[in-house]
């Protein structure tokens, strides 16, 4: 068998008329393949659209725009949320622009996670021509230089507002200066920028990552207090960090470091970077498991995608994710509260999932309309966020004397969410 095969190879590899013909045939075959793949794409386009997430968006928006009132965003000093009965993210009202159409340039980081996709979808749902906006969407493909290019293009197109979700915190001074010189207000959203002159951008709106971290640690503290025998025993913690220097990583890691300092029995065994992606999260977790094994009681995982990787690594190491620490289960803390993350939370594999709200379209529309009316906005605007768990042992997380409710997760609640 092998020999026959080999003979064929040999004849094929010699130069000759017969071979040349075969060569032609094989390249024709390849060309046909290329064509086929192209066709597949075209025909797919027609059918594929049905499952696309933003389909319901437009209907919903028209509904909501009727109730245009509603408070603006929670301001910095706040922190006293009252427990709420409905937990739909889409309750946020959208500000409809009744005047001349506004052109908005939006530079998005990329499409690296469900979270990011949800935020892009939210922007596209809100800034529609029906609502009085013209959205120019630019995908940065996870590269800062693409985003800087996008800002320059927006300036060239003379947009009314630039919305920037920055890939990194540093390196924005010159491009923001250009926007300022062109007289275009810049709204920074989600992640933060560190610039010499804070006046280079108009406002920042986003999650309070530090508060998210603090709430997660407060939950852990409260949970351990409810467990008899665990309160003072040693708790080994590992931190699977996000992309280093991203705002979310800094806020969440700092919160953990502080909490570990505060509790003598909490031991931070290892800190490794998982880049916010599943594959890397799994890889670093595998390594930490080999190093520390059963000394790991708590995995503090800085987003859901990495948590999926961490859960896989735990399973392949024969360990169980759960909340019963005394029987050797590993307690996984995660952030973002994306759908799959919440499903894992409902199953009890993730103990607590602190939300990082990606649906920032409505909030941004209200900020832009406020700016249009000449309202004075605080420099920093925070989103309201929730914390989910399927355990009812902890009902609130207390950070700096403010109490934040922990939402009991149900199947309906997950289905009612946008992402």
């Amino acid at each position, binding site marked *: 068998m092998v020999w026959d095969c080999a003979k064929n*190879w040999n004849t094929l590899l010699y130069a000759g008329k017969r071979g040349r013909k075969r060569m032609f045939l094989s390249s024709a075959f390849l060309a046909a393949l*290329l064509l086929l793949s192209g066709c*597949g794409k075209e025909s797919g386009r027609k059918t594929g659209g049905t499952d696309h997430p933003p389909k319901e968006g437009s209907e919903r928006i028209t509904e909501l725009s009727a109730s245009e009132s509603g408070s603006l965003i929670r301001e910095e000093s706040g922190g006293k949320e009252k427990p709420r009965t409905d937990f739909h993210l889409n309750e946020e009202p959208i500000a409809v622009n009744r005047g001349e159409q506004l052109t908005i340039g939006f530079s998005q980081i990329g499409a690296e996670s469900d979270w990011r996709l949800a935020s892009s979808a939210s922007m596209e749902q809100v800034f529609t021509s029906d609502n009085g906006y013209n959205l120019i969407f630019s995908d940065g493909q996870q590269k800062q230089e693409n985003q800087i290019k996008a800002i320059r293009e927006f300036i060239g197109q003379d947009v009314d507002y630039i919305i920037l979700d920055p890939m990194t915190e540093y390196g924005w001074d010159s491009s923001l200066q250009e926007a300022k010189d062109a007289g275009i207000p810049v709204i920074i959203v989600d992640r933060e920028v560190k610039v010499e002159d804070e006046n280079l951008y108009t406002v920042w709106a986003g999650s309070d990552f530090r508060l998210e971290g603090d709430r997660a640690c407060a939950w852990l503290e409260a949970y351990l207090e409810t467990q008899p025998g665990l309160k003072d025993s040693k708790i080994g913690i590992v931190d699977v960090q996000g992309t280093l220097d991203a705002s979310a990583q800094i806020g969440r890691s700092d919160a953990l470091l502080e909490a570990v300092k505060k509790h003598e029995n909490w031991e931070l065994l290892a800190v490794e970077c998982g880049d916010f992606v599943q594959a890397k999260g799994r890889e670093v977790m595998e390594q930490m498991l080999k190093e520390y094994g059963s000394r790991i009681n708590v995995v503090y995982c800085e987003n859901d995608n990495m948590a999926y990787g961490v859960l896989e690594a735990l399973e392949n*190491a024969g360990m169980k994710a759960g909340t019963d620490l005394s029987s050797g289960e590993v307690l996984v803390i995660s952030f973002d509260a994306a759908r799959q993350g919440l499903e894992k939370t409902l199953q009890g594999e993730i103990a607590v999932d602190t939300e990082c709200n990606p649906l920032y379209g409505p909030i941004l529309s209200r900020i832009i309309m406020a700016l249009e009316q000449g309202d004075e906005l605080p420099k920093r605007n925070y989103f309201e966020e929730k914390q989910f768990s399927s355990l009812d042992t902890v009902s609130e997380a207390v950070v700096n004397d403010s109490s934040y409710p922990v939402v009991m997760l149900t199947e309906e609640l997950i289905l009612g969410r946008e992402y």
Partner: protein
Amino acid sequence: MTEKSFWKRVTGSGLLLPVMSLLLVMAVNIVFDILSGNNPFNFFMITLQQTTSNGSVLYGRIIDVLNRGSEAAILAIGMTLVVSSSAGTDISVGSVMSLCASFCCMLLAGYGVSSTNELAVPLVVGVLGGILMGSVCGAFNGTLVAYFRIQPMVATLILYSAARAVGLLLCNDLIVYVRNSSYAFFGSFLGPVPTPIVITAVCVAVITILLKKSALGMYIQSVGINAKASRISGLNSRRIMFLTYVLCGTFAGIAGIVASSRITSADSNNIGLYLEMDAILAVALGGNSLGGGRFNLAGSIIGAYTIQAITTTLYALGVSTTQAPVFKAIIVILIVAVQSEPVRAYMKKRRLARAAREGGAV
């Protein structure tokens, strides 16, 4: 360099240095484990671990090295052939991996769908489609290099920059999740053994048989050493060069499927990122000349695992992920320097001198 010393070098100690480097990297772990009071062979321990969904699986750092190094090892096979035949490198393999993963996931999920539990086409169709896409990319590179005589690095630069973008187009700019357990197979376990290890073993076995049992291996080397002479002696040099690029693309396709199956999604921006550099490095660490000609496939594969062993060792030593590349660079410089021509010549000279001295004393 005479023909005789060339042969002698290869048969005598061609694999010696790559194997030595790998062992040296692993020896660091023994030293570390002794210093930290663990079992000295902690790094080499392989145990059977009970898991809930995959039954009992092999577990240990060596398994990690073999498992995590799979993609680089598969790429290194193709890269070795390309380097040998064309004296150039295919820098598009990382991007092609990502394109193949995207294409495969697009087929499995259907165009424009970002997350699916049901497969749109049978698994085999998606996987073979992804691998074939790799062959097509390889054929494109091969045509440019072999028939249009474009410098390999320039020719493959096209797909290096374009393939990821094409992948994103295929996936409608989304990350496509195929949340179906059958697709996860290529990145999980076959019995107790991680599937990527099995896939790598199969790839190595197939290519070894092909190279050893047919004259292909000899042809490739002969084209790499002197394309013109090979042509005159009746070989179709261009076709052989073309073929090596097709093989390289196909292996990139396989590696892409493995990488994508690990995360059951097509993350076009991250799959295979910088992996082309690891593959080229693996070829170099394996003691192969990037100038083409004579090659040593086993060396390249050992090289790929050496790179992974360095990474895993650095994790084991607790070096933080931010500093790891620095240490990796230092180790690579050492390994490459030890294998370089002047150092080898010096060692040989010393050996000869010692032999002469001993001979003289008798």
